[in-house]
């Protein structure tokens, strides 16, 4: 069965990951030695108050070694992160396969509708583990990293999370968090499922009503230009809900794991805006 082979593959990948992690640490302890040397040289240069050509060349060679070490370390770390992403995508595939298999097998919905709290925890976790974009020197952040919008011809894949503008029964339009089921090139329409209640009627929407969620977090330390700036208008996921509302950015995140602080448009407040609330990078989209 496909599910079983997926399991064994996942097990394989996990052990490969373990290897990579061990290698990473070896690399890091090796380069540690060189870094200590650099530190010592710095101290000597600073106390002696002179910089002889001897020191300069020595420092240069130390720096070069350190550079090579850092590059090697980066490479291994990237491979490890890629491995994790691979495992995750396999898990995701497995989940979707299980969902489809489940739908056909049971007459009842495969899972009882999740309790609110569980759903929220899941959402929070997936927001946290959105991969961080760490570019090599000279790389620019790609589309769907942080605030960078998707390219014009981008098509979301099944399983991707998107914000979908659906019409409620009473005619109101709302942006909800949804998961893509399929896309039809012929009609240019997506089929999406509301994240909240699976098994509910799925929506078929044209491309213009779909905004894909970011696939990477932007790193404020290296790519601040890929973040939304103060007072920019965005669509943000309201905390503890699965709906997006218009909001203004209050402060962008300072560290990679930080959230945006935003002000939601809210007529129940005097100035029309809510107090600052935290929204993860994965829940902040450019306003349509």
């Amino acid at each position: 069965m496909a599910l079983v082979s997926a399991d064994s593959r996942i097990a394989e990948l996990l052990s490969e990951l373990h290897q990579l992690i061990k290698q990473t640490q070896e690399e890091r302890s090796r380069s540690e030695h060189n870094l200590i040397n650099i530190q010592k040289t710095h101290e000597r240069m600073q106390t002696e108050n002179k910089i002889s050509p001897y020191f300069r060349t020595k420092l240069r060679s130390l720096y070069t070694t350190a550079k090579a070490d850092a590059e090697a370390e980066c490479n291994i770390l990237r491979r490890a992160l890629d491995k994790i992403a691979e495992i995750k995508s396999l898990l995701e595939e497995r989940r979707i396969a299980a969902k489809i298999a489940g739908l056909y097998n049971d007459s009842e919905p495969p899972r009882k509708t999740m309790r609110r709290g569980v759903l929220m925890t899941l959402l929070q976790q997936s927001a946290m583990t959105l991969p961080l974009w760490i570019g090599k020197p000279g790389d620019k952040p790609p589309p769907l990293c942080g605030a960078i919008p998707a390219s014009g011809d981008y098509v979301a894949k099944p399983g991707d999370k998107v914000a979908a503008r659906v019409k409620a029964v009473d005619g109101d339009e709302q942006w909800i968090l949804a998961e893509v089921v399929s896309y039809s090139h012929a009609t240019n329409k997506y089929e999406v499922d509301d994240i909240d209640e699976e098994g509910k009627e799925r929506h078929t929407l044209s491309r213009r009503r779909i905004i894909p969620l970011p696939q990477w977090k932007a790193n404020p330390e290296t790519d601040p230009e890929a973040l939304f700036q103060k007072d920019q208008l965005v669509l943000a996921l309201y905390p503890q809900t699965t709906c997006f509302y218009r909001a203004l950015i209050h402060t962008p995140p300072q560290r990679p794991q930080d959230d945006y602080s935003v002000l939601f448009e809210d007529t129940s407040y005097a100035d029309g805006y809510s107090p600052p609330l935290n929204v993860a990078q994965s829940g902040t989209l450019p306003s349509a």
Partner: protein
Amino acid sequence: MSELKDCPLQFHDFKSVDHLKVCPRYTAVLARSEDDGIGIEELDTLQLELETLLSSASRRLRVLEAETQILTDWQDKKGDRRFLKLGRDHELGAPAKHGKPKKQKLEGKAGHGPGPGPGRPKSKNLQSKIQEYEFTDDPIDVPRIPKNDAPNRFWASVEPYCADITSEEVRTLEELLKPPEDEAEHYKIPPLGKHYSQRWAQEDLLEEQKDGARAAAVADKKKGIMGPLTELDTKDVDALLKKSEAQHEQPEDGCPFGPLTQRLLQALVEENIISPMEDSPIPDVSGKESGADGASTSPRNQNKPFRLAKEEVNRQELRQRVRMADNEVMDAFRKIMAARQKKRTPTKKEKDQAWKTLKERESILKLLDG
């Protein structure tokens, strides 16, 4: 030896992330053996920790690259540091200024002067900051004394006018002066051609003939099975016919220029732009008129530049000889000076030589002036 304050490096603290504190899951996984392996539920935390490690490693890499770049640039730029020194002294007003320039010179040699002493640690930080600032400016505007370029540029621009005449240029002048002979040919008036009304009548006849032929061909084609391709062919043929006829017509007229120009002239005449030429079509006349005004055609004027050029060449030769004579005089002078230095009277030989060269020079100069 350069001082610490000159160093533009920032001496970053390159400590790597202490993974024991910051990445507990990572550490735990490391400790485990292969059999225990990693659980799926640990993936998320691992991911976060690895990302932290990676981002600190990339940052370290970037800083290292920047620092090595500064270090390389700095080593390459030692020559300009004198200006930076001056700039810095200006800013700081340090007392021991005279000590520094000396150190600069000694830098290249093996020995090293004493450092400014440890009594400057406080100002060190400030200085290193200023130094960094100046160094960042360096690649952009090196404070070299801007060379006064103007005289060079002036002489360069005037050069073409003052340069010696080469024999090539004389030859070019000669060739330019030759054309007067060729022009004589052009003045010949070609014989009268056919009057335009007659020629046009003829052409019209030919047109009608062609049309008739074409109509016949079309009629033929319609009978035949040929398609549109052959229409094109006949058109090509017609074009060729026309061309050949046009060419054929020329000898009749005895005029080297086509019928179009004739018609053009006639139109121009009718519009009173050109005065009528009594039916002798010389289309080139308009061109000639404008050309004639440009250059002066009198024989005297033609030859003047040529003569001047020749004269100038001679003068140049003389000037060359003067220069050589100058050199000889200088040599003689130097010899006498050397003799005087050695505290002996110059020999008769040397004196004679000196006089001789002087007299030569004077004679050449007289020739030149004459």
